[in-house]
């Protein structure tokens, strides 16, 4: 049953994927401004350079022809050569590991800190620990990430020297602080989501029934209430992983991380459609796989959700 569902979902990815590439390719193509306009400073580029550039990157061809060429190469595993004359595959290959590391740290923080805080707050509703979680998450949600990031860098990196100031090499240790900063907003949401769901489920009839039947509080809570309360949080965490990959632009800039967010930002600035499309297409793929994984975990956590 499950296998069939997964295959169907995988097949569905193909048209979604093609549609996404066409859309992104068109958006990159339609970006205002000639790609050579900013490449010679305040000087007009020599016509010979402009001609070479347009021919070299196929910009002199009509849109559909450009897109068709791109798709053909894509299926050969060739994502093209960008304006820095590097292959896009290479650009992505050196950046995705860093971005994934960063997202993994953020997601681990989400799961460990966020869920723990949510569960603690949920089981001690109205007590001190509950207020602590509610207030601290509110503070984190209210502060924009660039403020949080710059502040964390200043306090923990420069003043206290607990963490690396920047993470140019992309090692796990360097990425700890940026990961935490990136995850902070999601941690706060997960904590709040878990708390609310847990409180609701603890009041639910089936928990009361279980207790009335003589089940221990721990078991009623652990097996029944908690498991049900985690369903929305898992969905949220899964979706956030995809969001973190492309949405880390601000964090990446503050901590000088050589990741996908920065690459996307740079390619937009340079009107470098080739890199942009390549980077975003891979993001789309990751997002689709994450949603699939979330859906599978979903049915495992809650057997009522059937994939038939």
């Amino acid at each position: 049953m499950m296998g069939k569902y997964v295959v169907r979902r995988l097949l569905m990815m193909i048209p979604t994927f093609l549609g996404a590439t066409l859309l992104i390719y068109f958006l990159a193509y339609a970006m205002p401004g000639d790609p050579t306009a900013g490449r010679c400073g305040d000087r007009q580029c020599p016509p010979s350079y402009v001609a070479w550039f347009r021919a070299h990157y196929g910009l002199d061809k009509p849109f559909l022809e450009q897109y068709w060429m791109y798709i053909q190469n894509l299926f050969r595993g060739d994502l093209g050569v960008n304006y820095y004359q590097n292959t896009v595959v290479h650009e992505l290959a050196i950046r995705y590991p860093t971005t994934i590391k960063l997202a993994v740290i953020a997601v681990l923080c989400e799961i460990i800190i966020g869920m723990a805080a949510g569960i603690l707050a949920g089981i001690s509703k109205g007590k001190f620990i509950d207020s602590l979680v509610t207030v601290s998450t509110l503070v984190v949600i209210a502060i924009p990430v660039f403020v949080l990031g710059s502040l964390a860098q200043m306090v923990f990196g420069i003043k206290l020297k607990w963490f690396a100031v920047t993470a140019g090499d992309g090692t796990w240790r360097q990425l700890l602080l940026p990961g935490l900063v990136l995850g902070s907003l999601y941690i706060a949401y997960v904590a709040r989501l878990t708390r609310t769901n847990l409180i609701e489920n603890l009041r639910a009839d089936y928990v009361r029934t279980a207790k009335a039947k003589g089940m221990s509080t721990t078991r009623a809570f652990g097996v029944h209430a908690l498991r049900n309360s985690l369903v929305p949080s898992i969905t949220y965490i899964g979706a956030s992983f995809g969001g973190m990959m492309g949405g880390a632009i601000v964090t990446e800039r503050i901590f000088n991380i050589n990741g996908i967010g920065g690459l996307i930002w740079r390619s937009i600035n340079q009107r470098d459609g080739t890199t942009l499309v390549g980077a975003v297409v891979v993001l789309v793929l990751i997002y689709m796989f994450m949603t699939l994984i979330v859906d599978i975990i979903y049915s495992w956590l809650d057997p009522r959700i059937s994939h038939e």
Partner: protein
Amino acid sequence: MRTHTRVITAGIAAALMLLGTTACSSNPGGSPTTGGLTSITVRGCTPQHPLLPVSTNEVCGGNVLDATEAKLVHYNSDDASPELDVASSIDTTDAIHWTVKLQQGYMFQDGTEVKAHNFVDAWNWGAYAPNGQVNASFFEPIEGFDDLQCPADQADCTPAVTEMSGLKVIDDYTFTITTTDPTSNLKVRLGYTAFAPQPDAFFADTSDGKADFAKTPIAAGPYQITEHTDTQMVLQKNANYSGKFTGAVDQVTFKIYNDLSAAYNDVVANNLDITDVIPSDQLVGDAWKNDLVNSDGTPRWGTKATGVIQVVSFANAKQDPGLTDVRIREAISMAVDRAQIASTIFNNARTPATGWVSPAVDGYKADQCTNCVFDPTKAKELYDAAGGYPGTLSLWVNGDGGHDPWATAMCNQITNNLGLPCVVQDTPDFATLRDKIQKRELTGMFRTGWQMDYPSIENFLAPIYATGASSNDTDYSNPQFDSLLKQAAAATDDATANSLYQQAEALLNVDMPTMPTFYQASQFGFSTKVKSVKMTPFSTFDFGSVVLN
């Protein structure tokens, strides 16, 4: 009330918890000194073009090539005056026919000797249109350049001629240059990166656009690129270096930063040794001078006047008829209090411009722009006499360059002093602004800047204000101006040439196609490992000046 107290306690505890969770300590390492070799790390950024002298026209690649390429002429790192490097003499009697003699025994990094054909072949390759090199236009003065270009109406072509007739190899150490028109400052121009020689290995590379060679190019300068990745470029001292401009440290690593603030913070925390740019928010209230100070009070920062000028250009009369009357343009320029903006917005990191030429170059004359003197009363009189500007005046700047503060201040002054509504228009980025300027889509005024290519007064006038010049964004055209430039280019002694260029500059004060705003200086900072360092008037690092603690 009870709840209230609890909430506050919870808030404090939350802060403590945040401290607790992040308390797993890690200690970032400083810059390495490997095996007795001295090494420093400096801020770098991703080069936009391949690392070839004829391909590189921006600072990210330029900073690196400045340390790796030797040219016929070297610019003094203090005052930018030209000094002979690979050349032993560059002579002319008529500013048209030049004889270049090379030093014997000057070596490339791969141990081959720099010979005359290495220059001539490299320049021909750079100028040849199908090679599509960004810096091709620097070879324009050389006779025969046009034969290597495509016809104006044809984008793609293969010219039959691949060598400029103006270049002739006489022997291994001598070649001659013939220019189409007299070019009195050719010697100064020859120090620009585009005129660097290329070794035989360059011509042997068959990859598209010499991309393989450009990864770790071989040149004749004091440093050699030994590693080039997306996160850093490592330069080591060139063992075969034959010139006099030796670097002071054995290894220089350019670490790539996408953001100026990240680099700055790393210098403050001693993780990076030198940054050549200070983010503008740190200039406010001189915050950077407080951050960058040693425990004994000695500064870890410096400034250097550079050959960069910021200008606000007026859209020409065809684009914006409202600006046709020169009195309107004069009035706008006079209504701007440059000194006030320089002190309040830039904390005097920029200085008010008094002419169209940077003080960093030979030929500079102060106070050429009398319309740049702040005079709100006279400005208002001129403005009213000319009948005013219809509607709202736009000041276009690129939104990604941190130009909003000064542009807003400038607009406010124009509005207050002239009663002319002025609004700052942001384009999303630099490329969009250039695109709109090049397509002549803008009305009102727009920001243009100029960083000198070579230290000559000519470089601030001819490329920007000569009729039809490549950077003439305002379509300025004055036959008298053009003729003065021609005469200056033909003058064989510097004093005469400079005086003619200054006369041409004075015409800009009459016609006001643009209004000069600020001269720029570079601000830089360094770590505790570095005792002192200097920067050049080109905003590049002077690696010969680095003194380590």
